[in-house]
């Protein structure tokens, strides 16, 4: 009888996993079927959004049809999974018939939830989806003077380096535009330093001082007064702004909590095997997996590689031995033409090095070649 692996979500984790499985398994003989269920036809590479507000990329650059990225032997279903029955091993779909699985991989990713903070949707911009990034591009183009505030509100959030990158890029971009002297920039962060990873905070702090970027720490907005343009925090402080760029709260898919797989839409998993804690033959990768590292594309990529190896071993009757070790890689833009790079895992903290032009071009080069990653080639 055919063993069916269903991957829910066709983002970085889902696409890499499906293609790695197609590469390793003999899908032609009918023993195994790989199905990807995605709620839209396109695969989106989210790191591109950072460049849209500065006019360096367009929303169209961030997406390609998923069907073009997946191996032809993978069955692609464009539909929305609305329910998971882990006892019956069955998925409920919005349009199509219920679907049985033998192995289920949840790769549904993060969703933005600005509505969790009153006034944020009306009073704030963001660059975490194409519409938001385009709207911010237009606002920045017209922003001649005033107080630009970048506020990290949602924790955890995708691309943990992106808020720092945004203010470094905004600083330099406004200088290029001849407007920097008329714009004050403030960056806010929820804890007592300017990034969750202490070495990254230590790298960024002197660069903030050099660039004249202000910072507020222990700063957790709980309400935005969009009319008065003032942020009110849990700590009882207020900050006035003229242009607010916020990192909105994130949530996972509500069906995950409904299925008893974890809180807030993140699946509780073993951090090495990625197996769900509360159900058999269920796994999670990418933002969906509740593991103690960043919600970053590189995490989804490396998790997908480890899980592909484990699933292939299991299907071929060998004990699975590959483990995800927490490997995370982030390029960090330090302006418009220099960047640094960090690599870390569950045991080893990152060591940021001084930025340079080469790493910036490496980041842009990787972004262009990302589609090879999605295809499972690198």
């Amino acid at each position: 009888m055919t063993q069916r692996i269903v991957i829910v979500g066709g983002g970085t984790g889902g696409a890499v996993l499906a293609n790695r499985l197609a590469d390793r398994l003999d899908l032609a003989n009918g023993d195994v079927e790989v199905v990807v269920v995605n709620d839209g036809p396109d695969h989106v590479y989210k790191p591109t959004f950072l460049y849209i507000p500065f006019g360096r990329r367009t929303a169209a650059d961030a997406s390609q049809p998923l069907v073009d990225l997946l191996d032809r032997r993978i069955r692609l279903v464009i539909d929305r999974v609305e329910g998971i029955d882990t006892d019956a091993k069955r998925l409920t779909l919005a349009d199509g018939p219920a679907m049985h699985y033998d192995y289920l991989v949840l790769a549904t990713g993060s969703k933005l939830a600005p509505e969790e903070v009153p006034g944020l949707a009306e009073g704030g911009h963001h660059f975490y989806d194409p519409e938001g990034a385009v709207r911010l591009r237009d606002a920045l183009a017209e922003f001649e003077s005033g107080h630009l505030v970048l506020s990290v509100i949602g924790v955890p959030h995708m691309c943990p380096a992106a808020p720092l990158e945004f203010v470094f890029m905004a600083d330099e971009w406004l200088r290029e535009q001849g407007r920097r002297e008329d714009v004050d920039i403030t960056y806010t962060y929820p804890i007592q330093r300017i990034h969750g990873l202490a070495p990254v905070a230590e790298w960024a702090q002197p660069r903030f001082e050099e660039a004249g970027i202000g910072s507020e720490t222990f700063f957790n907005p709980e309400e935005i007064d969009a009319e008065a343009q003032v942020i009110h925090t849990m700590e009882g402080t207020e900050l006035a702004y003229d242009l607010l760029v916020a990192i909105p709260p994130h949530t996972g898919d509500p069906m995950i909590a409904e299925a008893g797989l974890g809180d807030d839409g993140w699946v509780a998993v073993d951090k090495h095997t990625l197996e769900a804690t509360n159900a058999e033959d269920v796994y999670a990768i990418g933002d969906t997996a509740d593991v103690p590292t960043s919600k970053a594309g590189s995490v989804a990529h490396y998790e997908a590689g480890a899980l592909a190896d484990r699933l292939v071993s299991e299907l071929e009757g060998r004990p699975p031995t590959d483990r995800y070790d927490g490997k995370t890689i982030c390029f960090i833009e330090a302006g418009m033409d220099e960047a640094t790079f960090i690599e870390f895992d569950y045991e080893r903290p990152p060591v940021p090095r001084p930025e340079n032009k080469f790493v910036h071009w490496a980041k842009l080069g990787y972004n262009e070649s990302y589609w090879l990653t999605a295809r499972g080639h690198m």
Partner: protein
Amino acid sequence: MSETDIQSDVTIDSRGAGCPGPLMDLIGKVKTADSGTVFELQTTDSSSKNDVPEWVEKANHELLDVVDHDDYWSMFVRKS
């Protein structure tokens, strides 16, 4: 090892957490909870013993107790 009889409403298991870290996990949960909710933050990060009390004081919540379990700490916080 020490003991407590505090009953928490929400347990946050941040043992082994790297980025974004235990304090961020706590802030995220406190943000959406009702006033009076008691949290147990489980952490293996020794810096939590400094940064959690600092934030709790700044945000005007209440640190009820810190329990040392040898291989992790439980920090009990009540939302104001």
